């Protein structure tokens, strides 16, 4: 979809206050639902849950148990609707009875104070995650983003530049663990961060430079994905290509025209460590670049170590890049995480920028649906790719 043509700009301050109020009410409502859920007894009588004639659980489990079980902890919006029980759970979305339709999403309020520049506060987007599973082995999934809700830059008037974008839209046919065919727009399977780059699901308010400069976030085309299970763990593979014009391409980096790529990843059964490698060759107006990357993740109790490295080279000198980041996370208390990340980033081509970047901060996730993050970035020099300063965000998952 294309950006919406808006009517003449409305008085921004009035609407800012209204939107802030709506957001606040929404957060409070979610909190009330979560508290109610926490206080709700699971089932007063265990015998009740064992009796299919009287249980609130088992009679609902008809043909597809995965989607027709309504858990006791779910907030029931409409028990006896014509399509079954419509229920909601924070950070898991609304489930529309037995239709196979589930709608959730997330939204983020961002604060940024780049060195020597005024601060900026932005309600960046509301993203809706729409899942439709009409049959057991086929699903349609989409992420629709309502973006540019408002941006306030210090000493400047509030700006609103609303857009609607299709971040992802694909159909997926699952034949077995080994064979899954995907068609549409999906995250480019390079490394780990880019598979789940959305603000509420990463641990820092800033993004590694290599993600913002070297990796095309999405592909529009086909992908074959699957998992094999050798004794020592699991091996995931992806083979994909952009075989059509991109759907709602982003501007940075400039959208690619065609591509072919692959990824392989080994993961131990308990996910204590995992390693992966990625490759993509992409074409922009007849100029090709090739990217190869390695990544790894390691977990030990409250520690998590994540690293990604890539090398990109080709016909476009400005896209010749070598970079690596290593990120450590330490959960000091339940839900409170300390973060630190080191990144080396080198533009190998004409610009010749080489920079060392450090990010540090914390993330606090008291409940599944809320995460607050603050990250401070330093670097050994300023470049066009690196902005030093403080980033913070408050994300709600609904």
């Amino acid at each position, binding site marked *: 979809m294309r950006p919406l043509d808006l009517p003449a700009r409305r008085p921004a301050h009035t609407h800012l206050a209204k939107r802030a109020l709506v957001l606040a009410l929404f957060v409070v409502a979610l909190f009330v639902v979560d508290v109610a859920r926490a206080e709700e007894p*699971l*089932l007063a009588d*265990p*015998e009740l*849950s*064992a009796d*299919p004639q009287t*249980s609130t*659980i*088992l009679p609902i*489990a008809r043909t597809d*148990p*995965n989607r027709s*079980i309504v*858990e*006791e*902890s779910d907030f029931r919006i409409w028990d006896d609707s014509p399509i079954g029980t419509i229920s909601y759970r924070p*950070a*898991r979305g609304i489930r529309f009875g037995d239709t196979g339709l*589930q709608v*959730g999403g997330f939204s983020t309020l961002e604060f940024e104070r780049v060195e020597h520049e005024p601060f900026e506060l932005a309600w960046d987007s509301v993203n809706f*995650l729409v*899942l439709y599973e009409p049959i*057991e*082995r086929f*699903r349609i*999934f989409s992420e629709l983003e309502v973006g540019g809700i408002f941006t306030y830059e210090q000493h400047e008037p509030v700006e609103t530049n609303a857009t609607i974008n299709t971040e992802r839209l694909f159909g997926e046919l*699952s034949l*077995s*663990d080994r064979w899954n065919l995907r068609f549409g727009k999906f995250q480019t399977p390079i490394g780990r961060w880019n*598979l*789940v780059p*959305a603000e*509420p*699901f990463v641990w820092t308010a800033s993004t590694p430079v290599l993600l913002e400069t070297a990796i095309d976030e999405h592909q529009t085309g086909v992908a074959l994905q699957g*998992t094999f*299970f050798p*004794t020592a*763990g*699991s091996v995931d593979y992806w083979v994909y290509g952009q075989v059509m014009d991109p759907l709602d391409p982003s501007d940075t980096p400039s959208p690619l025209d065609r591509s072919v790529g692959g990824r392989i990843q080994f*993961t131990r*059964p*308990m*996910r204590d460590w995992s390693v992966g490698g990625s490759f993509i060759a992409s074409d922009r107006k007849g100029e090709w670049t090739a990217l190869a990357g390695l990544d790894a993740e390691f977990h*030990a*109790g*409250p*520690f998590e170590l994540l690293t990604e490295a890539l090398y990109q080279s080709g016909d476009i000198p400005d896209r010749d890049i070598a970079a690596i980041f290593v990120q450590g996370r*330490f*959960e*000091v208390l*339940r839900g409170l995480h300390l973060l630190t990340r080191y990144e080396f980033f080198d533009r190998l081509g004409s610009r010749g920028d080489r920079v060392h970047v450090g990010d540090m901060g914390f993330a606090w*996730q008291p409940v*599944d649906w809320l995460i607050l993050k603050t990250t401070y970035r330093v670097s050994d020099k300023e470049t066009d790719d690196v902005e030093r300063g403080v980033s913070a965000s408050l994300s709600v*998952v609904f």
Partner: protein
Amino acid sequence: MRATDLGHEAFRRLAKHLARGSLVVALLGAASTSAEEWAIVVHKSREESVTLSDVAQIYLKQRRFWRDGAVIVPVNLSAGSAAREFFAQAVYDSDAGSQRPYWNQQYFHGILPPVSLASSEAVLRYVGSEPRAIGYIPERLVDDSVHVVAQFEGGSD
């Protein structure tokens, strides 16, 4: 021992302590009850062998299909229950809460965690009637409607 070594040792102990913090809480709860064997069960008609590693992958929805091609339906006990903690310790060697970031990330891909039932009796009844399901119950509840594929030790639910 040098001062830096002492620092590292203290840090290592702190990390270990924090890592096991929730386990201690779970074990304190379990200490008031007796140890009990738990059984991982599937429908009686399902013959294939399942290891604890398989179970770990099934409950993360990495492994989604039985060998005969049917979709696997993993069933959990309620979040926050002692049984859920015993299961997480036995299968993932970590507390149940440590799976939270994983499932938040899966939500981004439209993949939801296994459903939870409110009691072991409900799990038994469900698995006993659903050929695609897998669940875990105290071994004392096992009857001929289900087939035990693996066991682990925990406390009373």
